[in-house]
């Protein structure tokens, strides 16, 4: 019986193909919009998460001074190598600590020059920041201890200075020193918060102190928490230790800050999710409008087919037979629209993700949900026209012209 009703509905839809298509269009657009928004949102979330993960898992950065908004910092004394050693020694759950100092400067190779950031650090940097080498090697103990003029460069620096040439073994000039390139870091791409992670030159910390900065300051300390250790806990311990070492009593404000990337990741992901939800909600409104379109056409259809309804009632159709017939027709219409919307959404997700450089995410959950939602729209908006049809008086319906 239900199969018959479905066939009947399908034929009624085919009979008025043009009208049915236009009616479905509302649902198609609504469903496609909701799914595409959610897919793009998920893609963006995954990208943000990946980018943060690429910075180094469980990374914490300790800097002197307090952030005062818009990248400004209050002046505060820098750290020393002793602070870094104290963190490595006294804070439990720390995997690696890398004391660093950096300065922006122009690096020169041949007749090419490039303005970049030169960082003095040690080999822990690679582990803490998740940096792997595409070519060459990291620093040796001897180079670190004696502060030799060697460096590891990032992909951007290589591209700007060397083009198609092999950088390993070449000598580039940093200020007054000539420095041999011993390693090339693998590309990590754009960071989510802006800034090119490949635009860097790394030298041993001692080399930086002696030949570039002329002091023994540590301008920031990067550390990673061990797997399974809460970064919040490590952050609190580092803060406590630095309070002690920098003689800050309870009611004084800190003259340093510890940034926890996990925390930033959570915030960013949360923001993306809220945006996804909002866009999805706006798209859902169009689904509602589509539903109203279906109700409108179903009402027209009931009026047009009054005689048919009269015949059916006269030969023994029950109210619920007629109700079901028109309800199934509305649901078939909206479900077909839903399926077409899903197909459109898959196309849109692929092309828009490509255009926006996001990973393609096709979430089956939201597609299934959108499909059932579109079917539900058919039930809700098909009910009133179907009830109108079912309650017709057969005598009047048969007389209807």
């Amino acid at each position: 019986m239900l199969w018959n009703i479905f066939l009947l509905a399908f034929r009624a839809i085919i009979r008025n193909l043009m009208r049915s298509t236009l009616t479905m269009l509302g649902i198609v657009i609504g469903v496609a919009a909701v799914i595409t928004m959610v897919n793009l949102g998920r893609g963006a979330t995954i990208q943000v998460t990946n980018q943060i993960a690429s910075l180094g898992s469980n990374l914490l950065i300790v800097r002197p001074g307090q952030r005062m908004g818009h990248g400004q910092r209050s002046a505060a004394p820098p750290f020393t190598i002793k602070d870094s050693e104290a963190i490595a020694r006294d804070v439990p759950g720390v995997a690696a600590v890398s004391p660093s100092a950096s300065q922006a400067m122009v690096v020169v190779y041949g007749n090419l020059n490039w303005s970049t950031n030169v960082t003095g650090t040690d080999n822990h940097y690679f582990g803490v920041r998740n940096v792997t080498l595409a070519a060459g090697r990291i620093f040796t103990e001897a180079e670190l201890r004696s502060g030799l003029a060697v460096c590891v460069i990032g992909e951007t620096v290589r591209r700007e200075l060397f083009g198609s040439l092999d950088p390993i073994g070449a000598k580039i000039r940093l200020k007054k020193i000539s420095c041999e390139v011993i390693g090339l870091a693998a590309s990590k791409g754009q960071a989510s918060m802006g800034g090119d992670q490949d635009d860097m030159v790394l030298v041993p910390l001692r080399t930086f102190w002696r030949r570039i900065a002329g002091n023994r300051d540590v301008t920031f300390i990067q550390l990673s928490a061990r797997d399974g250790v809460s970064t919040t806990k490590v952050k609190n311990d580092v803060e406590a230790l630095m309070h002690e070492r920098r003689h800050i009593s309870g009611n004084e404000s800190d003259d340093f800050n510890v940034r926890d990337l996990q925390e930033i990741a959570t915030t960013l992901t949360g923001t993306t999710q809220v945006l996804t939800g909002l866009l999805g909600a706006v798209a859902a409104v169009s689904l509602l409008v589509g539903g109203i379109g279906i109700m409108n056409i179903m009402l027209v259809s009931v009026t047009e087919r009054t005689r048919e309804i009269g015949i059916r009632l006269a030969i023994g159709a029950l109210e619920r037979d007629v109700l079901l017939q028109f309800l199934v027709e509305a649901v078939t219409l909206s479900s077909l629209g839903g399926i077409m919307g899903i197909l459109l959404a898959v196309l849109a997700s692929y092309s828009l993700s490509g255009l926006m450089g996001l990973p393609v995410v096709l979430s089956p959950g939201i597609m299934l949900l959108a499909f059932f939602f579109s079917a539900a729209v058919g039930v809700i908006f098909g009910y009133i026209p179907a009830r109108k049809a079912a309650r017709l008086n057969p005598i009047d319906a048969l007389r209807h012209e």
Partner: protein
Amino acid sequence: MGLSQDNVIIDLQGVSKVYGKGVAAVHALRGIDIRISSGEFVAMMGPSGSGKSTCMNILGCLDTPTAGTYQFEGEDVSRLTRDQRALLRRHYLGFVFQGFNLLARTTALENVELPLIYRGLPAEERRQYAQEALTAVGLQGWETHSPAELSGGQQQRVAIARAIVSKPTVLLADEPTGNLDTARSLEIMDLLTRFNREQHLTVVMVTHEVEMAAYASRLIHFRDGSVEQDHQQDNLT
């Protein structure tokens, strides 16, 4: 059921129908008594507004009387609910209308199958019975044609096939020849007479035309909502 003498199928007693209320009230039927037995061929005649169509609607359980009782095979159906009346139509009544009332863009066979769908018959049985009914009205070979591709006489024969396919107790025909020329009309009347004779099908027909009424075995004349004349006649053969 069927206990009364002469196998009375339809028994109307003091049936009135009033449309509207107060001064605007229209008395379509004023307490009529009609009994119809199994196998009768009844023609109902009368001028417009005489109440014959209202009577037909009540007989067809499409409408309910304002007063009086209507017993169908001994059961009082005048107080049935809408759905109960639909079930009665589904199982005991067949309808033929003046305007044919076939579903457009639907083949003859599918039109005839329609009542069987509501009876919940499986597809092969439906097809078989519909085929038989179409053959019975002389339309074998026209199964796949839609009403638009059939002549008026053929359309009415499809409608008769649809009415008899469910093997009803009573066939109700509301001016079945009203839209047809004389030759086609006579064909239709021959068909109805045949089903009445051969299958002992009770036929109740409303008509304007004396020629068509002559086929019936009993003639009921309506005037102003009352039965003016009700007599047996020798029907044509």
